[in-house]
């Protein structure tokens, strides 16, 4: 809380956790979080664009160091997808997994930008509410999870046919007996609802909590000379630990995407 503009700690936290919201119309739902949207789009297109620049000129001969790095990433994703999906992964699932992993990883990494310094820089441009981390906004994680959810249903219908998919809805997991149809259906509906919720809330919760802890550590810095000392020590410690969380949550999100999509291919 280097900025003396805040009167209470809760004001500081609230300010840093507020999105730059624009009302698109009178309706309550028609609000756009400009910071989330812009940061997410920058993260996504810069990271995938850089990979594309390398992929475009990829040679089968001796690779440059940049290409070798991209190939390492490629191999990592390919191995993960191969271990849980048996179909033609190159057609869609593996590139989708690459997108999810890289995008989420970069969006999570925005957490490493020091909040108060970034707030000063944004303030210089007249932006007084600007959150760095798009994945600490439920809208982003839910959008990704819903996207995967729609793909899940799409592939389920595409692979099994509308009839087969509907049949699975009623005849699995307890069997095709008409007596257990309602139980089957309720089970499947719960599964379909819980998947995107757990998928999105896991990432959101981790990133939001990470940000809150950074804010609490930042507040400690306002409590005096010792506070500054311990706050920088704790901040560094938490940032180092956070590297693990950032990478791990991106990996978990990607793996769940792959697992959900391959489950949709295999059916019950």
């Amino acid at each position, binding site marked *: 809380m280097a900025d003396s503009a805040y009167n209470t700690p809760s004001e500081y936290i609230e300010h840093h956790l507020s999105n730059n919201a624009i009302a698109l119309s009178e309706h309550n739902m028609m609000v756009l*979080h400009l910071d989330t949207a812009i940061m997410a789009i920058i993260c996504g297109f810069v990271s*995938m664009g850089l990979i594309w620049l390398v992929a*475009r000129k*990829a040679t089968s001969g001796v690779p440059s160091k940049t290409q070798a790095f991209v190939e390492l990433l*490629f191999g990592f994703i390919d191995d993960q997808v191969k271990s849980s999906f048996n179909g033609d992964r190159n057609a869609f699932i593996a590139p*989708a997994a*690459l997108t999810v992993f890289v995008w989420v990883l970069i969006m999570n990494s925005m957490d490493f930008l020091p909040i108060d310094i970034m707030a000063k820089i944004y303030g210089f441009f007249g932006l007084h509410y600007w959150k760095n981390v798009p994945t600490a906004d439920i809208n982003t994680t839910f959008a990704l999870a819903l996207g995967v959810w729609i793909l899940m249903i799409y592939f389920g219908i595409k692979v099994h046919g509308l009839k087969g998919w509907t049949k699975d809805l009623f005849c699995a997991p307890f069997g095709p007996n008409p007596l257990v149809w309602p139980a089957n259906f309720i089970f499947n509906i719960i599964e379909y609802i819980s998947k995107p919720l757990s998928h999105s809330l896991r990432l959101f919760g981790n990133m939001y909590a990470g940000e809150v802890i950074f804010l609490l550590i930042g507040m400690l810095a306002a409590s005096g000379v010792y506070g500054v000392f311990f706050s920088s020590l704790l901040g560094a410690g938490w940032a180092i630990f956070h590297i693990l969380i950032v990478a791990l949550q991106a990996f978990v999100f990607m793996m769940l995407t792959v697992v959900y999509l391959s489950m949709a291919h295999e059916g019950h």
Partner: protein
Amino acid sequence: MNINFTLIAQAIAFAILIWFTVRFVWPPLLRAIEKRQKEIADGLAAAHEGKISLEKAEIRNAETLDETKQKGAEILNQAEKRATEIVEAAKKSAQEEGDRIITGARAEIDQELNRAKEELRAQVSTLALAGAEKILDKEIDKKAHVAMLAKLAKDL
């Protein structure tokens, strides 16, 4: 923590990003890596083939070497045999030539000897006759004793 239009915006961005990756990022990387994998596999297969053909060539080399050695030994044997033959033949012809020369020399010596004897004989008879003439002087009639002298010369 409120769900709003941002979700739609993010979903659209997500869709575009996935499409972009599926369409432009993944295929060239996959192509490059698969091509390299194939090249490496081909290279390894070629190396294996090369190794096998090298082994074959080594075996063939050893065989040829053996054959050549054998042939060389054979030729050497033949040459030795031939040399011995030549030396034997040379010895034999030398022996024959020597024998022939010796025989010739002997014959010549015999001839010389005979001639010398003849000469000696003739001279002895003359000498004997002259000596007898001197000793006997006129006591011996040349004509009366010519037959006896001829007989004496013959007996020498």
